[in-house]
């Protein structure tokens, strides 16, 4: 089997996307003629899931073949041909399948397939069913391309592709008011980071550095510190935008306006981790610029802590999970910034399992409550939705880092790396504080949704269909046992060439501390919200600090006042200038011409004699002029 099988990985979902898109157009045509046309939901959904499951199977097959191979041989490359043949920069369309790509692909296609299956039940009856699966398949294709891309420009194509799908899927319910605005916000905020990413690529190209990822990794050791720092900073801007880190994290909570499976796949498990992937992929470049690497860790740690406070105070179930995602992505950045990219990838994988699970379970709850997302109007669902309760509990415990669940192992690795790093005190403290808050908000959600007395308007709440429960069950198993994968993944990935700081805090002590704060967080949550959760919420909401955290530290308000409003004013000013000054000049010239023509046309009266008179007068004047000039 040749390496060209790699093209099937993005190719199959892409083909699926095009097919479902055509189905949707056909349906729209028939509806325009007044027919009542529905998508063949089961068939279409199963085929769309298979278009993701097949790449998963291929990835498993290819990865399994490596088990006996030497680490150096674990790379498959396929080139479609020259893509941008310029004189100084020649870029080929190369896909490269290596251990890091394999790990990411297993998550993208594996979790992606589960969420596709879940979506069949969740989107049941939606009139845009085919369009949804078209976008979702397209997302998987773009994400696969992003992960497999052998060079930065091709990676950027996938990067923009997932951004586009994110925009389309956040605004999926475009008849409503909120979703399109949220999609636009996500798109525009991401543009800010992507501009940095693009400039970073340009900088590398200008300095004559290879854009091929493997070649860049090898060349990174010899890059001048200044160039490495500048390129690292610019690429980091892109990573920050995509992974919703400070100061560009404002788009992610709003992105929850999209369908819940989309939040699970794109805004929790896969797309938002692309920034972490980029930092890990270019770890050697960042190591060549230690200040930038420290900045990665600092941004990650600060974001993790700040977002965790917001997750604790947020009253909307999905937005609380979104803040949690921002916080966990911050932890991954903290790990990468501490010189432990493998730990970041380990947490990326387990986080994909339990956060996707939490979102799907939240979707199940929201579905059962007919769209209710306010935590204070839930409660007591444990008995009515036993399956959803159990999987949510598993996800929350994994998120909280309760041993021996998935989150415990991966978070433990990050904390250990943070305590080993040069900035052990700052990074370690940020990591531990985040862990404490994480455990607290995870169990706050469990208690407010499932414990206590029911507070919802309608009481006829039923468990969701097996179509929703089965994918959640699979993810729950992964959340419970995923910790076993962390150590193999870290061994599987090529070791970072960083001189790992030996010493630091003993690993056993880190484990003890991490477990301690997790248990402490759970107890604090239990003490606060176990009984009369809604009243406690109302009490807390009066506290100013709680309100600041719940409003996302007013970053949105700040942007609205200092960036959005001036930008809009500038746009209006430009519009006025265009309408009155530029258009005025153009229209003025036109009006002047018409006026001049209207006046001059009177000279053309069609009478031969007046023309002759004109000629006579002109001739006389010419003769007079010639006479007076030539007169001696």
């Amino acid at each position, binding site marked *: 089997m040749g390496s060209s099988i790699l093209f099937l990985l993005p190719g199959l979902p892409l083909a699926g996307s095009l097919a479902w898109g055509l189905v949707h157009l056909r349906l729209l045509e028939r509806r325009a003629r007044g027919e009542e046309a529905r998508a063949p939901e089961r068939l279409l959904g199963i085929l769309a899931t298979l278009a993701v499951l097949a790449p998963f199977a291929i990835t498993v097959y290819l990865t399994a073949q490596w088990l006996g191979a030497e680490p150096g041989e674990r790379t498959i490359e396929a080139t479609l041909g020259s893509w941008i043949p310029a004189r100084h920069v020649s870029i080929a369309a190369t896909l490269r399948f290596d251990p890091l790509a394999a790990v990411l692909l297993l998550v993208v296609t594996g979790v992606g397939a589960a969420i596709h299956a879940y979506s069949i039940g969740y989107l049941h009856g939606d009139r845009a069913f085919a369009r949804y699966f078209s976008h979702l398949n397209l997302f998987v294709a773009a994400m696969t391309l992003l992960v497999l891309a052998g060079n930065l420009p091709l990676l950027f194509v996938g990067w923009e592709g997932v951004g586009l799908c994110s925009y389309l899927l956040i605004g999926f319910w475009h008849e409503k008011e909120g979703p399109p605005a949220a999609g636009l916000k996500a798109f525009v905020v991401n543009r800010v980071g992507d501009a940095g990413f693009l400039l970073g690529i340009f900088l590398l190209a200008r300095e004559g550095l290879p854009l091929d990822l493997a070649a860049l990794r090898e060349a990174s050791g010899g890059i001048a510190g200044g160039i490495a720092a500048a390129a690292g900073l610019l690429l980091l801007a892109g990573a920050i935008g995509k992974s919703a880190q400070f100061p560009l994290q404002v788009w992610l909570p709003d992105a929850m306006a999209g369908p819940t499976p989309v939040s699970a796949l794109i805004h929790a498990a896969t797309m938002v981790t692309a920034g972490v992937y980029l930092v890990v992929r270019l770890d050697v470049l960042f190591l060549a610029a230690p200040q930038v690497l420290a900045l990665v860790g600092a941004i990650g740690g600060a974001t993790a802590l700040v977002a965790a406070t917001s997750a604790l105070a947020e009253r909307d179930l999905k937005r609380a999970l979104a803040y949690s995602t921002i916080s966990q992505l911050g932890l991954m950045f903290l790990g990468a910034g501490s010189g432990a990219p493998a730990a970041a990838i380990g947490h990326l994988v387990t986080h994909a399992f339990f956060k996707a699970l939490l979102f799907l379970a939240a979707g199940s709850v929201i579905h059962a409550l007919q769209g209710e997302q306010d935590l204070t109007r839930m409660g007591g669902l444990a008995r009515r939705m036993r399956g959803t309760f159990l999987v949510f509990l598993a996800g929350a415990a994994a998120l909280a880092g309760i041993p021996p669940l998935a989150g415990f192992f991966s978070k433990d690795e990050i904390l250990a790396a943070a305590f080993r790093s040069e900035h052990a005190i700052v990074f370690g403290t940020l990591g531990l504080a985040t862990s404490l808050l994480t455990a607290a908000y995870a169990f706050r959600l469990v208690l407010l949704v499932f414990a206590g007395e029911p507070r919802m308007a309608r009481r006829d709440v039923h468990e969701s269909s097996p179509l929703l429960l089965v994918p959640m069950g699979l993810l729950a198993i992964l959340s419970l046992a995923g910790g076993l994968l962390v150590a193999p993944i870290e061994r599987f990935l090529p070791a970072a060439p960083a001189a790992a700081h030996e010493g630091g805090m003993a690993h056993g002590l880190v484990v003890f501390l991490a477990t301690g704060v997790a248990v402490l967080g759970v107890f604090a949550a239990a003490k606060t919200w176990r009984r009369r959760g809604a009243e406690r919420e109302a009490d807390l909401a009066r506290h100013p600090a709680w309100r600041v955290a719940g409003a996302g530290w007013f970053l949105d308000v700040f942007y609205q006042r200092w960036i959005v409003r001036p930008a809009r004013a500038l746009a209006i000013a430009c519009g006025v200038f265009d309408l009155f000054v530029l258009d005025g000049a153009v229209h003025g010239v036109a009006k002047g011409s018409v006026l001049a023509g209207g006046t001059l*046309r009177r000279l053309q*009266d*069609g009478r031969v004699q007046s023309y*002759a008179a004109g000629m*006579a007068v002109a001739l006389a004047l010419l003769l007079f002029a010639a006479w007076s000039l030539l007169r001696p």
Partner: protein
Amino acid sequence: MTVPTSHVFALGAVLFAVGIAGFLGRRNLLVVFLSLELLFNAVIVTLAGAARHHANLEGSAFAVFVLFLAAVEAAVGLALLVALFRIRRSVDPDAMATLKG
């Protein structure tokens, strides 16, 4: 006694002035046409006077050319005039201002 050259030029100028006045002022195309002939003749008189003054044949040769041109012009012009009159049933030059802008 010989006529001085200045008198010949003066005659040419007077003829030219009369011709211009008639060409621009008359309301009958036929008279306008006649005025045009006057203009030609003014030029011919001036050329002939100049030829005599310089005692060479250049001026006379040009005079013959202009005479020849005037004959051609008269033939074409009269033919046009007749054709126009058949269409318009009028000899007023202002009635033919169809090219008014």
